[in-house]
């Protein structure tokens, strides 16, 4: 069984290798090959899952060591895998959703001549993501961590000829690198503290280390998580990442990769449990982000950007939960999974809409689409209900648990974060309703398609359409609708199943541990409040966007709105704080290197030269002056000799 873990990673890796190295010959079947291999690893995942269920709680985790990777005296890193319930949850999510999105992409990327490469990248991503979750030590995890970063970089910038895409890709990678610094330092700290950085020994002996060290490690891990999971202050890249093809946004920037940070924190639970300050930091980050993302989501007219904001905020929930410690871990993961379903579904829906609307992304130019793309409407709608936490749907269960846990943190901070979480829920309901209304309801606000190159962030003709022609919305092919349907099912029932006599909790508890917090409010109170605020949010949204027609040109809006449209000035801040100062610094250094360091050397040379030409003048060609110099020399010589004797 253990060896299958390797196969799990190997399958998509093989796919990536074949698709990227293989020549044009593969163009015709490449996408199917990629999908097949993704499916394969999903199947393997299922087999392992079945096998795991076959064993009892404590003995479910299996591990295997392939080979010794970097052995330098006490520094021993192996390529070895560990598959426990936590990893398994991710494996299934990744391979499952991954396979669906492969399938979706078959249709979505149909008209792109570089489709083979696209699938190669997707497979590469799967491999890296799987490596990330099955690695049994932090260094190997780092490899997967960066691997997904690379895949994300390649896929965001898939349409490299668009400067915006290339820039977005670069931005994503570099912001993530900042997070990686955190991960590296965390690993170093572990090595110097424990002499190892493998999960089991580190986590097992965490209690031996000083709290200061643990806090340090925790904060560094948090930094890493912020980078990968687009948490404040490293969230700025996620919005731009929407430059990538929609399936990518669905898979990487909604369902899986961005949740890696949550995985990291949950995985390192024992460390955080012993470092309350670090935990507090995590909670704060999560809370801030969930509001931040929600607010941004309200202001965006670009459907994908709106969803991106929502993703950010939802992950905020997860991080918040993870920060709560044992009372939150399970729910963080649970929300992660349910979110994986409905957010992926929403993105695919959005993709389907764009597909039908000449790749228009501005919701203000949608409207009344429910009649034209029913399947999309339904699936999207279910996803919508799930995310706003409509009772009975998956989002309802997972989010509700988190809010409960937040209050259960107890004390003032419990109240604060709890109410923040509630507020977030309200805003979520608002902006998602807004999206829903603007897209599928109201009257048509369609515009003739702009010509391709002038398109704002338009994806190049997924389906050839001449400039200037009106869009003629239509339902997408089966390869796209099927995944949407499947995901819709997920978003409807997942939560319910997970909560069926706490199956999910029982499943994860052996790994993450769990303890019930003592909430000041009863579960029912919380639930009731949650539903109430949700309804309020929906109502407000309907008042604003449902009753009166939506203007095609966005109104100026309040200060907050305008700020939110600009991602709450995050990029502007970064620009001033880092980009500009940085460029000044580099320019200054370049100058210094030329004039200063190099100039010093050249200066010495010049000095010698000047000295030389000055001394040359003594050689004036007159015998008599030569004679003088000789005479003087002789005199000095004599004097010196006598002097020597005098001093001696």
């Amino acid at each position: 069984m253990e060896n299958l873990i390797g196969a799990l990673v190997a399958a998509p890796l093989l796919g990536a290798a074949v698709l990227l190295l293989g020549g044009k010959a593969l163009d015709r079947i490449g996408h199917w090959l990629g999908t097949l291999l993704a499916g394969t690893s999903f199947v393997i995942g299922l087999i392992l899952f079945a096998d795991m269920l076959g064993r009892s709680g404590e003995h479910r985790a299996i591990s295997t060591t392939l080979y010794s990777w970097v052995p330098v005296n006490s520094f021993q890193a192996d390529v070895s895998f560990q598959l426990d319930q936590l990893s398994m949850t991710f494996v299934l999510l990744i391979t499952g959703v991954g396979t669906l999105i492969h399938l979706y992409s078959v249709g979505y990327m149909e008209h792109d001549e570089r489709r083979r490469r696209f699938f190669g990248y997707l497979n590469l991503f799967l491999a890296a993501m799987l490596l990330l979750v099955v690695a049994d030590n932090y260094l190997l995890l780092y490899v997967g961590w960066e691997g997904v970063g690379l895949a994300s970089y390649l896929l965001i910038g898939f349409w490299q000829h668009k400067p915006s895409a290339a820039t977005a890709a670069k931005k994503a990678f570099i912001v993530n690198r900042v997070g990686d610094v955190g991960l590296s330092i965390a690993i170093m700290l572990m090595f110097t503290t424990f002499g190892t950085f493998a999960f089991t020994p580190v986590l097992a002996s965490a209690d031996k280390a000083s709290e200061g060290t643990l806090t340090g490690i925790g904060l560094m891990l948090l930094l890493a998580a912020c980078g990968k999971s687009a948490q404040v202050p490293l969230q700025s890249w996620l919005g731009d990442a929407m430059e990538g093809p929609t399936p990518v946004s669905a898979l990487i920037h909604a369902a899986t990769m961005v949740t890696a940070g949550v995985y990291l924190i949950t995985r390192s639970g024992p460390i955080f449990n012993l470092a309350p300050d670090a935990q507090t930091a995590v909670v704060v980050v999560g809370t801030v982000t969930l509001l931040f993302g929600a607010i941004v989501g309200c202001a965006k007219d670009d459907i994908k950007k709106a969803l991106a904001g929502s993703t950010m905020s939802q992950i905020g929930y997860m991080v918040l939960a993870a920060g709560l410690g044992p009372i939150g871990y399970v729910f963080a993961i649970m929300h992660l999974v349910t979110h994986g379903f409905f957010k992926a579904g929403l993105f695919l829906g959005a993709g389907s809409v764009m597909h039908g609307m000449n790749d228009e992304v501005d919701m203000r130019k949608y409207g009344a689409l429910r009649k034209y793309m029913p399947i999309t409407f339904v699936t999207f709608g279910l996803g919508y209900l799930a995310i706003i936490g409509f009772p009975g749907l998956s989002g309802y269960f997972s989010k509700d648990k988190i809010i409960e846990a937040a209050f259960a943190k107890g004390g003032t901070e419990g109240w604060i974060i709890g109410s923040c979480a509630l507020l977030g829920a309200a805003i979520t309901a608002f902006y998602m309703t807004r999206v829903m209304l603007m897209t599928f309801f109201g009257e048509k606000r369609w515009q003739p398609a702009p010509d391709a190159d002038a398109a704002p962030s338009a994806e190049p003709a997924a389906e050839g359409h001449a400039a200037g022609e009106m869009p003629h919305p239509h339902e997408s092919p089966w390869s796209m609708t099927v995944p949407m349907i499947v995901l819709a099912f997920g978003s409807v029932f997942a939560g319910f199943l997970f909560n069926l006599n706490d199956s999910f909790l029982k499943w994860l508890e052996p790994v993450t541990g769990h303890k019930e917090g003592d909430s000041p409010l009863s579960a029912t109170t919380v639930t009731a409040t949650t539903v109430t605020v949700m309804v309020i949010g929906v109502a407000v949204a309907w008042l604003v966007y449902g009753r009166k027609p939506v203007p095609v040109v966005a109104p100026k809006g309040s200060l907050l709105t305008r700020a939110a449209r600009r991602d709450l000035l995050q990029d502007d801040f970064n620009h001033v704080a880092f980009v500009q100062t940085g460029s000044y610094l580099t320019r200054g250094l370049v100058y210094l290197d030329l004039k200063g360091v190099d100039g010093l050397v050249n200066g010495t040379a010049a000095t010698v030269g000047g000295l030389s030409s000055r001394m040359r003048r003594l050689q004036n060609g007159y015998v008599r002056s030569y004679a003088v110099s000789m005479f003087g020399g002789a005199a000095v010589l004599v004097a010196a000799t006598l002097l020597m004797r005098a001093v001696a």
Partner: protein
Amino acid sequence: MTASATVHSLWTTAAGDGFKIPAPHIEYAQLSPVLIVFGAAVLGVLADAFLPRRSRYGAQLLISVAGLVGAFGAVLVLASNGYATDKAHLAAMGAVAVDGPALFLQGTIVLVSLVAVFTFAERRLEPKTDGARTDAFTAQGSAVPGSEQEKAATKAGFTTTEVFPLTLFAVGGMMIFPAAADLLTLFVALEVFSLPLYLLCALARRRRMLSQEAAVKYFLLGAFSSAFLLFGIALLYGYAGTVSFGGIADVVSGTAPMTPALAETAGNDALLLIGGAMVLMGLLFKVGAVPFHAWTPDVYQGAPTPVTGFMAAATKVAAFGALLRLLYVALPGLRWDWRPVLWGVAILTMVVGAIVAVTQTDVKRLLAYSSIAHAGFILAGVVATTPDGISSVMFYLAAYSFVTLGAFAVVTLVRDAGGEATHLSRWAGLGRRSPLVAAVFAVFLLAFAGIPLTSGFAGKFAVFKAAADGGATPLVIVGVLSSAVAAFFYIRVIVLMFFSDPSPEGPTVAVPSPLTTTAIAFGVVTTVVLGILPQYFLDLADKASVFVR
């Protein structure tokens, strides 16, 4: 008063009957190297006097080569008979030393001169005048430059074959110079090799004004310095009552039998110190050490290039040999007085030589300044005052002299209408036009710069090592830094030759006769061999590093 009495008695006895002044006893065999050279020189004079003009060149060349080869053979024989080591002693009534350093340096000088004579005899570079091949020397020294007389002489195909005997005389003098065991011999030898050199400088075929100016400068300054030398000798004689190195050393160390007169003068250190300093100055002038270097660039530039090469190589060997002997045999007791002084001179010489060379624009002047810098390096070895110092200096001299000869030989090849094109700008792109010559010159330059695997590096290392052992670490550091500066201008020439494009009307590279070719080849071979396998020659220098007294 008593002293004057003794003198009178001397006279009277001398005049009296039954008193015989013993005839001096000369070991001709042991002096044979010098004697052979002088013999050849005299023979050359006779040949020039009596042979018809056409056959003079051949005869002179034959005589000189034969003489030098013979001399070299004689040196080898003496060395192999142990005169360099255990049988070393003072010959000719203590006037001339026959010992290791003497023989080693004499051998070097003879060999250098032999190669130099090849370059003197080169007759393919200058354009023919009316079918007659001509060499680097003027048709008629006495003819005014540009005058009818000169034209006539040139037309008649006159050549100055006197250069060969002159050279031989100079060589003879140079051979005695490092072997001189008393100050008188030293002085005479100095004049014997200087006077011919003055003349040789004046005999260039092209640019005669420069040539004559060089001669005048060299002569006047040379005479000036030798006057100092002589006065120094006088003072030393006054101090010690004798001019033999050994004798002076004894008096300095106080082991000599004291006469009242001697007791009086020997008490007066001023005589000793001033005298020593002045003699030192005379020798430093010859080696071209700062501040007595001023003549070097002008003379090197003005003199006919083969002569420059000969001077630069041989004179340095001879002068440093003499310097070593004076310091190690006559004035070892004054070590603590002259070492600091020489430290100063060495540092000054290295620095000034290297720095001033940086802005030179004429190849010959450049090499002149480089020779000054090298004099500084050698001085660093001289002040080591260890046996290592002696051997390393001798090795350096041998290595350096052949490189120098080769370099100047290459300079004679690069020519344009006006003769040799010595301005650096004319050398641009030489590496493109004739890679071989440029490469050879590059090798010599790298040797000068002391790049490893060339003789220059071996020599430099030996000298600096000796200096460091002798406790002159600061000298080593200054030496290292000034070599860095020196490297700059050697490299500049290489850049010029290889990395800059040739100018269309650039100079041509003349194809030399086997004579010059041999000279250059010899230079290259020694450069490489002494660079890669110096051990044998180092041993030789080491064995030969003991002065007799």
